[in-house]
């Protein structure tokens, strides 16, 4: 059993490449950051570590979206909701950690509550000073939301574009709600000015490395878990639902249960990504809920290659690196480049970059076999 599981995880060439790259990054980035002196050509600056950590969170999010879209055929335009809710849970914990070190020195209330004259802590902020509870909430709240939403939507057989649009409505409604200052989540400014995590200073490079490693591990585990799901019997049912939902239902599978299960699992992955993302970027605010961001995630997946988990991760990495690079190198016109990239990829690379690589490989093998044949 164990052996077969291992083989199953190791089966695909892309997956093997993914594990190896991730492992190399997890080992060498911290080494080159802490071990090699600043100024050396091999030194990886802390700035890059923080950036890579962020990309890994995005990659995790992309995998979550790919699981539901690429394998189960549910195009979610609302995964930012789960991502941001996870982020808010982490943010609330980090806010409570500030304690009396806020600018107003109030031991209980976060700064934004003090200056808006809140007298007491809202009920949902209680307990968030405990890490385990905050992490439980980080999984519980998005999980519950995904469960409730999915339970209704899949039982009612909302599909296709309709489903996509109501997931968008979901994250849009949350965006508007979190913008409201009365909600008690800091309104537009969101939660920021974090000091430490589990007692460690967030600005120290040790904690940065730790967060980077945590993101890498989370990404690796999530990847493995998704692979396991896909390669299992359930995975085959999932793909059957994607390809011919009615037929799967007629055969006797409870389609809505399968979808619900994948949906909630994917939402939990997104929430974890959000929770890891927040301490690394230092702020969580309602714009993370923005429907446009949700579309962007889908674009990452499409650019990398829908329906292959490593493709999704690769897409997230590439698009975000392009964004980082273009916004600095071509600040005036970078949207042309990015927009052009999206159009080009959909038109010319229907299977994404992964598909392109696969095409090259087949061409190479074909050429090789031709050569052999002619020789």
């Amino acid at each position, binding site marked *: 059993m164990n052996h077969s599981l291992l083989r199953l995880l190791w089966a695909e060439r892309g997956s093997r490449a993914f594990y190896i790259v991730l492992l190399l990054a997890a080992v060498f980035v911290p080494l080159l950051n802490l071990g090699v002196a600043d100024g050396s050509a091999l030194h990886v600056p802390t700035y890059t570590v923080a950036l890579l950590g962020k990309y890994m969170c995005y990659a995790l999010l992309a995998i979550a979206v790919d699981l539901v879209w690429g394998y189960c055929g549910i195009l979610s335009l609302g995964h930012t909701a789960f991502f941001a809710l996870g982020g808010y849970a982490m943010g609330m914990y980090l806010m409570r950690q500030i304690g009396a070190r806020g600018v107003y020195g109030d031991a209980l209330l976060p700064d934004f509550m003090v200056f808006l004259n809140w007298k007491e802590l809202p009920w949902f902020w209680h307990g968030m000073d405990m890490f385990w509870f905050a992490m439980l909430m980080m999984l519980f709240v998005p999980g519950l939301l995904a469960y409730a939403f999915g339970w209704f939507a899949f039982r009612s057989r909302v599909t296709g574009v309709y489903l996509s*649009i109501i997931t968008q409505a979901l994250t849009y409604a949350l965006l508007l709600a979190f913008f409201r200052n009365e909600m008690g989540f800091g309104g537009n400014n969101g939660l920021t000015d974090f000091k430490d995590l589990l007692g460690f200073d967030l600005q120290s490079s040790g904690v940065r490395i730790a967060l980077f490693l945590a993101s890498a591990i989370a990404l690796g585990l999530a990847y493995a878990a998704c692979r396991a799901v896909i390669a299992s019997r359930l995975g085959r049912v999932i793909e059957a639902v994607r390809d011919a939902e009615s037929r799967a239902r007629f055969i006797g599978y409870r389609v809505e249960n399968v979808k619900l299960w994948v949906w909630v699992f994917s939402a939990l992955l997104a929430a974890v990504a959000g929770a890891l993302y927040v301490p690394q970027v230092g702020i969580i605010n309602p714009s993370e809920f923005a429907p446009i961001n949700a579309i962007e995630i889908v674009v990452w997946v499409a650019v990398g290659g829908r329906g292959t988990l490593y493709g999704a991760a690769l897409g997230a990495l590439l698009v975000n690196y392009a964004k980082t690079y273009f916004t600095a190198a071509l600040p005036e016109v970078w949207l*042309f480049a990015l927009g052009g990239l999206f159009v080009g990829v959909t038109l010319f690379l229907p299977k994404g970059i992964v598909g392109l690589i696969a095409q090259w490989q087949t061409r190479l093998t074909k050429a090789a076999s031709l050569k052999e044949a002619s020789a």
Partner: protein
Amino acid sequence: MTASSKFRTILRAGALGLALCVGPAAAQDESPAEAPAISEIHDPATLLAALPDAGYADKQAIAEQLVQSAGAQAGPALRALLEGRLYSDANQRVVVVDGEGEGETVALRDPLSGAALGSAASAALTKIGSNNKLRKALKGLLARLDLADADPDKRLAAVNEALRNLDAPAIAALRARRDAETDSKVRDAIDVGLAVADLASDSADTRLAAVQRLSGELSPDVYNALQSLVADDGSGKRREPDERVLMAADAAIHRIDNQRALYGGVETLFFGLSLGSVLVLSAIGLAITFGVMGVINMAHGELMMLGAYTAYVMQQLMPQHITAATLLAIPMAFIVAGAAGIAIERGIVRFLYGRPLETLLATFGLSLVLQQLVRSVFSPLNRSVSTPEFMSGSLVINDALSLTWNRLYIVFFMLLVFLALQLVLKRTSLGLKVRAVSQNRAMARAMGVRSEWIDAATFGLGSGVAGVAGVALSQLTNVGPNLGQSYIIDSFMVVVFGGVGSLWGTLISGMSLGVVSKLLEPHTGAVMAKILVLVFLILFIQRRPRGLFPQKGRAAEG
């Protein structure tokens, strides 16, 4: 007020024989000694000559004195001052400039006699400015002059203006006019004003008669006057001592409250319908590209943006004819956005048929490109699109209800666009082919329909309608690179709620979403109203997974 200009003021005042010696700052502090100075001048020309250097408070005094001394003759000068057309020229003459003072030279007229004074370079003229307080006073003064105007509409406006600021001179003027007035409407308005004045009378009978006269009047001034009559005087007793008057006043207030509530309801409904029309307008193009063709066009908002910019460009091309430019912008926007749509269809979308979700990605990229394109061409700043004369202001139905013209026109415009689209789709051969292709592409092709051509035309049609919607939006909101993004999500919601592929569905869903959110807004606030509408939408889709008007038949399953 700088020291030097104050010095000049004093010099000029000296020239006037010490008649005037006031800077604006001085006016408030030291006025008792100097304010009578203005009231001693009776020559209109001298008064006018003092205007350019006077402070705002003095301008007001001068204006009042002008009315005193010159009567109706002062009207044109004061109106010019109110409208910012009164200038002082290089020779320190006070002149009126007609029309826009934008050209190189402008024609001048004498403010009092109206005689032509030749022309002058506009650069050599200095505008005689006004501020809010002065403008308000001027409006009051002009109203008093207009009470005797030949035009009954002007008299009515004058009476209403006087009503808003009912001081002793205004009451006196109304009383003087009452019996000479021939127009019944104007006389009614004067009676209302006099009744409001009578509320302060010493005689309880007069007050009672006034209250009875005012019952059913909806003007807020009347309401406030009645309210203050029955209000507490601070010691728990009500200000009005007479029981009969009190009862009558309470009844009158109750009646006004009821009527106001009714008209408030009508107003809210109108607000909802107009919001709904905006939603329908922005969604209806999408209903075609998304509903009929199955293309998720994320660049739809940017096509609207193109339409709005077309309106801007048209107005830039024809700065003297804003109305004509705006009207011409409608077909132009249709052509521009339609051509862009056809280009998008030929260049991108046609390679992606059968993969609707990938059209989403490509058009999303395209929307980024279009936004940045507009930013590069027109700058990231918002552009100013003027409102044509006929669309500004509002249709006053009564004192409690007035509907803004631009919203009214947009409701009509939306209906027009909707009807036109219905006609095109239901009554033309193009429409027939469009419907045929959307229902069964293979069969339509087999019947000899050139589906490729139809696809391009349909996409062009939807995009063109988006451009037309953009012209309408340019009258309501910002014309800038972000215009599209702020409407795209709402548009998708409307189409999905109505049922993909159904124009009627889009109409009903846009209208009902508009009305529902406006009904909610007063109770919940704008943000909560929107959230509630979204939640409602999510729940509704659970009940009816294919929207209000689902497409029936096999094609719908695709």
